[in-house]
């Protein structure tokens, strides 16, 4: 087992627009990307569980040219709204880092 933080070269979050949040995980080479992909760990279910968002609200894509996975979910509040806590959406990736990959 290895954690995503041990395998990835990028694990980050950011606003995709003022109302949605995107999570990027980039792996260093095709071999690692395939390992993560075949493990099936990175899924809509995972994002749904880690971020308390319905699976139907998770957009998940693979991007082989960058050995990458990207998940996008609605923000809880618009960027900069009174109830918002992360204007840039730049610190929402933490829960992904300790996810274990067989």
């Amino acid at each position, binding site marked *: 087992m290895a954690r995503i933080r041990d395998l990835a070269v990028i694990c980050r979050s950011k606003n*995709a*627009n003022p109302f*949605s949040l995107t999570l990027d995980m980039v792996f260093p080479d095709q071999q690692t990307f395939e390992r993560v992909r075949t493990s099936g760990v990175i899924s809509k279910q995972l994002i749904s569980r880690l971020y308390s968002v319905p699976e139907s609200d998770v957009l998940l894509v693979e991007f082989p*040219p*960058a050995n*990458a996975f990207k998940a996008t979910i609605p923000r809880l509040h618009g960027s900069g*709204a*009174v109830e918002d806590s992360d204007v840039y959406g730049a610190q929402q990736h933490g829960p992904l880092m300790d996810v274990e990959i067989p």
Partner: protein
Amino acid sequence: MSEQELRIIAPTAIVGYGFQESSLERVLQKDPHLIACDGGSTDPGPNYLGMGKAFVGRDAAKRDLSLMLHAAVDRKIPMIVGTSGGAGGDAHLQWTREIVEEIARENNLHFKMALIHAEQSKEYVAKKLEDGRVEPIWPLGALDPGAVARSTNIVGMAGAEPYIEALGGGAQVILCGRSDDAAIFAAMPIKEEFDPALGWVAGKLLECGAACAVPRQKYGSEGITVTVREDHILVEPNHPGLTCTPLSVSTFFLHENETPLYHTEPSGVLDLTALDCQAVDERTVKITGAQFHPREKYTIRLEGVELVGYRCICVSYTRDPVLVQSIDGYLDAVRKLVVSRVDGMGVPAEDYKLVFRVIGKNAVMGEREPVKEILTHELGIIMEAVASTQELANEILGLARQAGKNLHYEGKLCDEGCITYPYSPSDIPAGPVYEYNMLHAVEPDSPLEMFPVEYVTV
């Protein structure tokens, strides 16, 4: 195509973020056809559009614009800035215009300048909504006519067409209000009849400076140069210490979007499902495989903000081991006391919001935070009141600060103050608070309808 290739320089990610002058001088030797830069972003939030203020310093912006302007005027090539002044409203465009005119005056530079306005009237948007020509962008729902009426500022994101119009009109300097980031750079290749897919890919890369190069931010903010050719583009960083690799460039297509595969632009969709990035040398990457699918329906993204009140905050913290473990109950009690006091002042509950942000406990992720247990010896508490006037926000925050310092809790031993403050004055009036209330696509009658081009001689 009148040229075999177009060489386009972006000196940095955002005007005012800076770059080393030597990096620009180095790539100017490549005899570029265009020097252009993104001027803004929604990243810093809604306040900048509402306030009409830039999120970079004026001197920083002037320094970058001055180097760009000299480079363009000396070589008789166009200079373009999109999303001028940060948020691209009329106030931001005017701010940038005044800086450019000041540089020209101080350096005796002369040129024809185009100003592309992107601020939209409420009446225009309301009419489009009535006509059924406004659609939501995920994850929002239908646009509420009330939100349009409450908006203080609405901007449209210009596509490539207004830039093409201004280039055709002979403008050497083009300043645009809110703009599609990639359109700033895609306009010239599209005008010169290169494959639009390559123009849009070039624009995607150029709009964020050297974000597609590694080591990222090693030298602070820097830029890249893109060469657009008949069937491919080449990208390389301006700073000699940076490199573009197939992985760094591919990774960049994940930047700030929902999916790297399809990118919606006003006139169609950029499809990167067959993207191919290959190393040409140690620092240059060749890109092929992009496709552009034009759409019959031309749409412009709208961004709008409304004023929701005025904010006052205070920063406080506790290092009391009993309070650290009982902070939620304590803050509930503080809230109850403040609410009853404010009620006693005759202020309706809907006139204000009281927010406590506990740093060390869910401050960053809020209710999405999966970690439930507090393992810390101290906590920060930002107290915040947002109210219908600044004076009321200050009053309410004053009550909260005082209650927060002294209120009783079970097991309290520190009866001179259970939270404390690093600053005097402790209360910081933070001014107007705006919220985004619109992220929708509107269908104009023509690509230029929302973006009047004004020419001035400088």
